[in-house]
């Protein structure tokens, strides 16, 4: 750059401008040239131009490879002609390493023609290395470049080892060291003591092994071997290896030619891969039963000599064995051969060494006979010693032959009597007959011998083991273990020796199935008592959970019940249950229940609350939830309603009774407060001028009923104002009688209107009028009646005008018509009517006679000869209605007196009649139709 600056500083401005224009070109050209240069150099490794500026320089040296970690010094030398032509010298040379300018401080100007640069060679160094120069001070032209490879010299080959495969292939391998990034030749040198063999050159760019031709080595001749590695950067060689190929031999596996079979032995004959004179061998021989996973090895010392056969002994008869072997130099040098190809052979048969395991199942189908299923197991292969062709079953009864059969089956059913039998079974094969197996079928009345005790089960090595304690007797011959699942009646069994005290069940024991295991000791004379236990090979969670339901729901508690999970779904022993219950919008609670429980009461629940409950059954493995169940607690507890209602009823009843009793015995108390004083019309002054009540005729024959005795009421019309009279309350008691109008017993009084009946037959139309008059009765007051007088007549001055201060109507029933039916409904209803009538009668007497006598005549009319009427009167007094009616009298003492008079003054009834007649005569002038006919008819005295 400094040179360029000096050049630029001395040139004119236009000269300065030209390079600016050309600089772009020069860069382009330079880069274009560089690209072309790269392409050309890639093919030729280096580039030397022959003409123009590109022939002006040359880089030396031109190595094809540079060693990593070394320093490389390159020189770029300009031709003299170029220096003269282009007026440039070595100081203008620019070094680049693949388009990257090398800092000038690394340049060294050797002289006017030569510039050098020093490169530290690293793995990141990339070619090409170029030298260029700026023509005319601006345009950089690449003059020369070189391509090189950054690589390594070969490392020293290490770990040279050789192996002789059998006797033909002698291969040596080594570790070539680091990659060199450069083509490196590896050569395996091979020499004998007095002979140098041709080099072994690895094939196919292999750099770590080579196979020496068979004519260049021999056993028992030491070969001196080493590896030489060489590339452009250097040469290296491994340590020498002196080896006798026989010491590194790996023989081919022997070939088993045949196996000669015996009952308990197999003789193996094989062909050795190497002659003994060449390499003496030793062997490994292994064998196993076909299907077994474990090999048995022949002791090595038994096969430590060169041989071509060996006899395996102590083998099981009629057993297929698999055999293989391998070999190695007897000197124990070199390598073991691969295992030979396996060969199978079967040893010869011998007679079975034991009888089959024997057991029975006895079904008593009558008192005398038994069906006995004899069953025995196939002999294990190692006991059968051959192919079992059949079984001989012999049954003896009292030592006398009973039955003998030959069968190929493993069971036999025979019907036996209740006697004891001896069963023997023998198996036979081609070579002979087994020892016999014996089983005693005891007599039916045989008393079972002691059984085992302390049965326990456990799982070990994925087997279900059962352990027991032997009976304290010494003559046990063997044990029989029976088992079956709960759901499968097929019983499996196995036999164990008398010395056994534990065993595992040799069957297809399925996990999560409950097995019932029974153990029977067998004695010479029979079997012992069977002892059983239930067990699982592996427990799991129940398949289903218990379904819980409510049995009884209360306010704060609920009785839950559930069914036992079926055994097949339990998958284990149910250890306990957990009940989870949760109220609406509440937290879940749980309670654990023993597995023996079938119902449980949850207490402390909230009343009138919906609960979600579920039950989880746990085995040793885990639990399973049952379905959810929802229930709602009651609002009231059982009996709570009764507790409330019954006392309330009792209290009401008591109150009622008490009230009744009080009414009976203390009626005055109520009179004061319930019935205020009502003006007594009989004591009213107006009664003095009331019309005379006609004498009534009483015909007890024709009027058997009291009410019929007093159908008519004598009413004194004390005013011309019909409306004032229509409001007289003494009409009200006639209301019940209105219902009987159609029976020509009409009794409407017609007070307050022109309704006074002349005849009961006519009372229907009259009663309507009186009814209309009754509707206004509530507005009528006696005071009005009294003050206006009767038809403007003035009462005698001598008579005292008495009026009631009460404003109450005479009869409450009129004011409260709803109470009337009650009065009608009660048994004394008729009496009540009578009372009203009596009251009206009484009124008539009072109007007529005044004083005490005015009440006696009506009563003589009503009840002079009928004792039933007296009784009814008493009943009337006892009833509310009766009280009510009685209390209508303003002066109760009068009523009492009058009641007593009723009983004593009957003979004086005619006096009353007279009075009534006088009143009637007085009233006839004004309103004869109003009451005369009634009095005449009743009294029978007044002519119509």
């Amino acid at each position, binding site marked *: 750059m400094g040179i360029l600056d000096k050049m630029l500083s001395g040139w004119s401005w236009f000269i300065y401008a030209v390079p600016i224009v050309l600089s772009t070109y020069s860069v382009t050209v330079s880069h274009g040239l560089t690209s072309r240069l790269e392409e050309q150099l890639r093919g030729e490794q280096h580039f030397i131009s022959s003409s123009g500026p590109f022939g002006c320089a040359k880089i030396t040296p031109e190595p094809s490879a540079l060693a990593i970690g070394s320093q490389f010094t390159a020189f770029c030398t300009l031709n003299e002609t170029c220096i003269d032509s282009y007026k440039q010298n070595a100081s203008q040379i620019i070094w680049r390493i693949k388009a990257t300018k090398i800092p000038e401080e690394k340049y060294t100007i050797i002289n006017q023609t030569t510039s050098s640069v020093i490169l530290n060679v690293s793995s990141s160094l990339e070619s090409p290395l170029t030298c260029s120069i700026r023509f005319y001070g601006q345009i950089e032209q690449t003059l020369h470049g070189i391509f090189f490879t950054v690589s390594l010299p070969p490392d020293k080959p290490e770990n040279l080892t050789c192996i002789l495969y059998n006797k033909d292939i002698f291969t040596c391998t080594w570790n070539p060291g680091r990659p060199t990034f450069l083509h490196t030749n590896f050569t395996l040198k091979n020499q004998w003591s007095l002979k140098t063999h041709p080099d072994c050159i690895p094939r196919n760019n292999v750099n770590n092994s080579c196979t020496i031709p068979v*004519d260049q080595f021999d*056993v028992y001749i030491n070969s001196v071997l080493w590896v030489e590695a060489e590339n452009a950067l250097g040469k290296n060689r491994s340590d020498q290896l002196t080896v006798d190929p026989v010491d590194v031999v790996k023989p081919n596996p022997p070939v088993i030619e045949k196996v000669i079979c015996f009952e308990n032995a197999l003789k193996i004959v094989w062909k050795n891969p190497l002659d003994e004179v060449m390499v003496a061998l030793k062997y490994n021989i292994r064998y196993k039963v076909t299907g077994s996973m474990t090999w048995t090895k022949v002791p090595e010392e038994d096969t430590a000599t060169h041989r071509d056969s060996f006899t395996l002994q102590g083998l099981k008869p009629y057993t297929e064995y698999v055999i293989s072997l391998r070999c190695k130099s007897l000197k124990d040098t070199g390598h073991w051969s691969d295992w030979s190809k396996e060969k199978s052979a079967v040893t010869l048969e011998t007679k079975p060494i034991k009888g089959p395991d024997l057991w029975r199942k006895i079904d008593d189908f009558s008192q005398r006979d038994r069906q006995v299923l004899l069953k025995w197991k196939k002999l294990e292969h190692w006991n059968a010693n051959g192919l079992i062709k059949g079984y001989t079953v012999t049954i003896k009864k009292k030592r006398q032959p009973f039955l003998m059969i030959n069968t190929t089956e493993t069971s036999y059913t025979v019907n036996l009597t209740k006697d004891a039998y001896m069963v023997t079974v023998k198996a036979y094969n081609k070579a002979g007959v087994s020892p016999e197996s014996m089983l005693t079928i005891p007599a039916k009345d045989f008393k079972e011998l002691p059984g085992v005790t302390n049965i326990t089960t456990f799982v070990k090595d994925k087997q279900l083991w059962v352990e027991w304690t032997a009976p304290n007797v010494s003559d046990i011959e063997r044990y029989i273990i029976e088992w079956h699942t709960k759901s499968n009646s097929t019983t499996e069994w196995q036999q164990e020796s008398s010395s056994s005290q534990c065993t595992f069940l040799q069957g297809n024991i399925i996990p999560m199935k409950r097995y019932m295991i029974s153990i029977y000791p067998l004695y010479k004379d029979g079997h012992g008592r069977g002892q059983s236990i239930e067990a699982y090979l592996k427990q799991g969670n129940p398949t289903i959970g218990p379904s819980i339901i409510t049995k009884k729901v209360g306010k704060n508690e609920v009785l839950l019940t559930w069914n036992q999970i079926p055994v097949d779904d339990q998958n284990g022993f149910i250890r306990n249950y957990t009940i989870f219950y949760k109220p609406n919008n509440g937290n879940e609670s749980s309670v654990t229940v023993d597995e023996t429980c079938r119902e449980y009461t949850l207490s402390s629940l909230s009343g009138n609350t919906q609960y979600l409950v579920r039950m989880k059954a746990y085995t040793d493995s885990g639990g399973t939830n049952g379905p959810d169940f929802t229930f709602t607690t009651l609002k009231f507890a059982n009996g709570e309603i009764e507790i409330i209602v019954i006392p309330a009823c009792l209290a009401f009843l008591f109150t009622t009774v008490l009230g009744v009793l009080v009414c009976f015995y203390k009626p005055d108390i109520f009179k004061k407060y319930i019935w205020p004083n009502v003006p007594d019309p009989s004591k009213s002054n107006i009664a003095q001028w009331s019309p005379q009540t006609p004498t009534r005729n009483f015909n007890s024959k024709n009027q058997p009923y009291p009410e019929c005795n007093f159908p008519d009421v004598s009413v004194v019309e004390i005013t011309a104002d019909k409306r004032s009279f229509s409001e007289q309350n003494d009409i009200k008691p006639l209301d019940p009688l209105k219902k009987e109008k159609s029976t020509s017993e009409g009794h409407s009084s017609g007070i307050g209107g022109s309704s006074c009946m002349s005849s009961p037959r006519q009372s229907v139309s009259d009663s309507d009028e009186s009814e209309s008059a009754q509707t206004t009765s509530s507005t009528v007051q006696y005071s009005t009646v009294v003050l206006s007088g009767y038809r403007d007549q003035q009462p005698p001055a001598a008579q005292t005008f008495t009026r009631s201060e009460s404003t109450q109507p005479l009869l409450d029933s009129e004011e409260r018509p709803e109470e009337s039916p009650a009065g009608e409904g009660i048994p004394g209803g008729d009496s009540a009517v009578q009372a009203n009538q009596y009251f009206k009668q009484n009124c008539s007497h009072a109007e007529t006679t005044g004083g005490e006598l005015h009440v006696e005549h009506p009563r003589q009319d009503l009840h002079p000869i009928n004792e039933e009427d007296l009784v009814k009167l008493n009943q009337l007094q006892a009833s509310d209605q009766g009280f009510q009616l009685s209390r209508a009298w303003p002066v109760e003492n009068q009523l009492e007196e009058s009641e007593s008079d009723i009983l004593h003054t009957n003979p004086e009834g005619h006096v009353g009649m007279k009075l009534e007649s006088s009143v009637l005569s007085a009233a006839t002038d004004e309103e004869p139709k109003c009451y005369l006919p009634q009095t005449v008819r009743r009294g029978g005295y007044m002519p119509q």
Partner: protein
Amino acid sequence: MEVLTGEERRKTRQGFGSRPTRLSSAQSQEAARKIEQICKQVLLLTANSQELLQKYLKHQGDPFGQPDFHPELMDFPGLPSPDLSQEAWLSLSDAERLRQNYVAYTILTDFLSEVKCWQEDLNPNAFDLLALLEKSAKQALGLRSNVASLMKTLCFLVPLVSPPPAFEASPDFIKKLKGWSICRHYQDWLHRTERDFTVLAQRYPL
């Protein structure tokens, strides 16, 4: 032909007789291993030489191979005779014993190669014989190398053996006879070497 310098002869003479005492234990062990190795090699080569002789007779045609054909064994200049008197053989020093073996197998190697050349002309299709001849020549060379290595281990000079004179052109039958004689000499020398190394093995036990 064997050519020994005066110094070599002197050293060789030192080797005769009893076991050299200058050997270190390691050298002795190495020598013993070498002797054992050569013993096994000789056994292998002896077996091969028997096979070679049978195959050779098989491919030469009548009268070769006839049970009653017992031609006289030809002598070859430079090839030491394997047959020595018992006394002479016993009196051989280790060095001389090894030297004779070395010289014999050096020459036999060349002879066997020559026989192979003859047989390539006489029985070009007898591949097994040709391969066996080549193998035997190689094994003889290997045995020679081992003997030389042992001699070096025992600090015996390895003699320089001049190549034997070229065989004169001869009729095929003579070639066959010469070939048979060479194979016989090879076998005889192997037997001799076997005996020699049995002695050496006793002197240089492992």
